[in-house]
């Protein structure tokens, strides 16, 4: 293991030019790239441009931003939306959860008008969703209108885990009852990575 390059906030990392770009955990000021975190410097090559990043070694402090894929747990259902708590952003587990709301029209990509919330989600379900632009100050609008998004972990009415059997159905592993869900197509290998 090579010795890591450690930096602290405000440390000047390198000059900002055509071959160096400021990435995560850094900021630009007056032609230089500075670190904004205490952590380890990481240089990623992207199409010939070196993206300078700083990785925090502890748990990262993040708030959801537009476009993030988040893991959330459904709490309340209504006719028009379901409320959930956001527990992870990408691979990062949050130590404080944030409120999310998933509207009926954002559940599926197709057949928007025929979607019914209770046929897609139930309280307790763990879902993958994408963060929409922020309009209200304290609630994040979420969307699952993509194949890869939707329920990933759910329990049947009897309290046993279920497995997906189609795009819209899951089956209880114990009682073999079928329930309706908007199922996420689980990408094998590391399903939580940011796309």
């Amino acid at each position, binding site marked *: 293991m090579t010795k890591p390059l450690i930096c602290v906030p405000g440390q000047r990392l390198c000059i900002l030019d055509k071959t160096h770009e400021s990435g995560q955990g850094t900021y630009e000021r007056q032609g230089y790239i500075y670190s904004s975190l205490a952590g380890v410097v990481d240089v990623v090559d992207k199409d010939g441009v070196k993206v300078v990043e700083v990785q925090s070694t502890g748990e990262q402090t993040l708030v959801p931003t537009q476009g993030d894929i988040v*893991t959330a*747990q459904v709490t309340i259902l209504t006719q028009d939306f379901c409320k959930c708590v956001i*527990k*992870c952003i990408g*691979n990062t*587990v*949050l*130590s*404080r959860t944030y409120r999310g709301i998933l509207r009926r029209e954002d559940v599926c990509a197709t057949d928007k008008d025929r979607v019914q919330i209770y046929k897609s989600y139930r309280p307790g379900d*763990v879902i993958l969703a994408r963060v929409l632009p922020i309009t209200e100050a304290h609630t994040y609008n979420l969307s699952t209108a993509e194949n890869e998004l939707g329920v990933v*972990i759910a329990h049947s009415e009897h309290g046993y885990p279920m497995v997906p059997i189609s795009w819209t159905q899951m089956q209880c592993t114990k009682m073999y009852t079928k329930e309706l869900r908007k199922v996420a197509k689980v990408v094998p290998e590391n399903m*939580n990575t940011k796309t």
Partner: protein
Amino acid sequence: MAKQFKSLHPTKFYRDYLNQDIRPDGRLVSKFRPVIINIGSIATADGSALVRIGKTTVICGIKAELCPPKPEKPNEGFLICNVELPPLCSSKFRPGPPSDLAQITTRFVADLILNSGCINLKDLCIVKEKLVWCLYADIICLDHDGCIIDACLLVLLTALKTVRLPVVQYDAAIDKKTIDASVKKCLNIYNTPVSTTYAMFEDKIITDPTTEEEEISSGLLTVVVKDKELCSIHKPGGSPLSEEKLYECINETVNHADLLITLINTAVSECNDDNKNC
């Protein structure tokens, strides 16, 4: 993935550990966390102590002030102890007035100190009906990782044992108080109540739980003993507990109490060595 799983299904995560007879922090189910006691760290206080149980950290500072006694109890002083759980110590607490937990803990600790008779308020009297000591014991939690009552009781007792009061001369005729700070007296502590907390999780009893364990447990139990005798039991609701299990807990507490009391006495004696004039 373990972290994600823990965040989404904490109970299941914990059950999986317990099925292997081990806790996420590597302890056995009935194992206590290490206790560290540090005394006299605050020079501005008349008595102080710091206690760590695992990661739980509490500090207690005692300030002595002078005041007239209550008319109905003319020869008794005051011991006012308050437990603060500031937002600093855990994200569970919000700024503002004390949380319910802080109020409950304050009350419990205050009652226990008065009822156990570990301190005699008459010792705090200087001149009957005129002047008594008022000891303000402020216990502040710096890091809340479970078993707050245990830590508070331990830190309060230790701090009380380090209190040094100056000699006061009082001339009632002209209301003149003279303080001689060169001679300082200890306080008499008649016994040392100590406590341990248990958490109930499904059919198991978990000793000395952390905050996470307290949160997923179905109930808590605090046993207070002094001189190998049961002093108080605090079981605020939660799932029921069989008599047999309760006895087990009491016995375990009695055994653990010896260790804690030895620890207090070692810490305090070190201080006394420094302070020969006591």
